[in-house]
């Protein structure tokens, strides 16, 4: 069990899955790029809109719900949680996460949704078998099974996140294709080949001896 002080931002999971260095830059070093701010504001707005038109009269929709899990040590917000009425009078929570772009090849979005589900399970003392991802660009909802495999991946990712952010060092960059779509590229300088022995020493010699 984590204490409230040790909770990490749920959104950090997706940063970690994208690139550990990016995650550390954001959450350890508090480096921000201003397009993050603007982008996040816009997302929420769009999102609330699309969900409202989806909601059926029998379903209660909660927006921007604060959630946490002391077991996982995560806290954040669930943008949309639909509450589906059951025959026994119980309301079944159904988290929906809005993504601006299109579905990704990897698990990132599923993991984030699953983490929300795990938080909701702990707070509402229930079991959540399913949620959904809504992709803005495709205007489509995809159901996601919160199955054992996804739960396992999510818990492992969360453990890695705690490990990364309890340390004090930002992992060095590793230049690859995703860097080109990374808004931190100017802060990160991935091409300054870290770890090359004597890189700066050679540079100084080259520049001053002539």
């Amino acid at each position, binding site marked *: 069990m984590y204490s409230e002080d040790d909770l990490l931002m749920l959104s950090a999971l997706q940063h970690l899955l994208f690139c550990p260095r990016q995650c550390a830059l954001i959450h*350890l070093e*508090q480096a921000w790029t201003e397009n993050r701010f603007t982008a996040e504001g816009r997302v929420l707005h769009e999102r609330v809109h699309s969900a409202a038109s989806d909601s059926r009269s029998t379903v209660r929709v909660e927006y921007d719900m604060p959630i946490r899990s002391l077991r996982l040590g995560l806290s954040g917000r669930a943008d949309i949680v639909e509450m589906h009425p059951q025959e026994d009078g119980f309301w079944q929570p159904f988290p929906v996460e809005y993504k601006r772009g299109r579905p990704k090849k990897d698990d990132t979005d599923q993991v984030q949704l699953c983490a929300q589900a795990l938080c909701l399970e702990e707070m509402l003392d229930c079991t959540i078998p399913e949620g959904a991802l809504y992709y803005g660009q495709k205007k489509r909802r995809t159901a996601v099974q919160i199955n054992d495999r996804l739960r396992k991946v999510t818990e492992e990712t969360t453990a890695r996140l705690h490990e990364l952010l309890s340390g004090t060092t930002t992992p060095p960059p590793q230049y690859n294709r995703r860097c080109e779509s990374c808004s931190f590229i100017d802060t990160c300088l991935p091409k*300054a080949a*870290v770890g090359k022995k004597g*890189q*700066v020493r050679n540079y*100084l010699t080259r*520049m*001053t001896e*002539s």
Partner: protein
Amino acid sequence: MKKHLNTLFVTTQGAYLAKEGETVAVRVEKKVRLRLPVHTLNGVVCFGNVGCSPFLLGFCAERDVTISFLTEHGRFLARVQGPVSGNVLLRREQYRRADDPTFSALMARAFINGKVANCRYLLNRTLRDHADKIDTNAMNKAVNHLTGLLKSLGRDLPLDKVRGTEGDAAHIYFSAFDHLIIHHKEDFFFRQRSRRPPLDLVNCLLSFLYTLVMHDVRSALECTGLDPAVGFLHRDRPGRSGLALDMMEEFRPMADRIALSLINRGQLQAKDFVVSASGGVRMKDKARKTLLTTYQERKQDVLQHPFLEEKMPLGLFFHTQALLLARFLRGDLDGYPPVIWH
């Protein structure tokens, strides 16, 4: 996304800056004279009696745009900066390293290496371009002297020796500085550095340019989460930005070059300055504007960063250097690579 690079300099006395949607609006006598989208700015510098609405201050803080207030003559007063930057871990590392004399000497050597190499570059360039108009003997002597000092900086020197070398280099360089002034020598001449107050036109120009560079270096350090007050070469002193002064060393010859080109191209003249009874020299409004515009334009020039070997606007170099410094402090690089022109 590359960091935007414009700095908005407001020198019109009585101007008022306000937020209008996503833009900064500059009002003079209740009329909007200029509107600039905030995402094209990385700083706003207000000279003298220039006001800012609190909403604009908050808005700029949130968008990582620093607003600085200077006196009409460029003395720093205050700045407004948002809460998001600042990494406690990096700062702690900086303080620990600054307490270590060996590490401080290493850093000091890097900064001074950059400065001396760039001074030498400036002399060499003039030698190459204007050999017919200058005292090449004196210049060559100065160049050789600086080369010798650079060699000694390549060795392991303790901090006080680095400071001594720095002093020698400055002396040699400034003794040759007058030769870099090719035209209008009757008005623009250089004997020695004077700052409080500047006692000739050239010193007046240099001081003002250094203030601008200082402002940019400080911002870059702050944005990176470093503490501009805690330096390696410059000892801690209350109210002094030690690290900003350290990092400024490698950029000083760049400022000198701007001053020289303003003089040599005749963009500034003696009548653009006021000499007070005490002998202290100040710039007139028009001169200040010319200088700010030139500085601004210079920062837009796209140049190859010598260490990263990537092209970027000169204005971004301050930021890049701060990042490289942070990287060295964290142990990700084997040294701090100052910008050296080649």
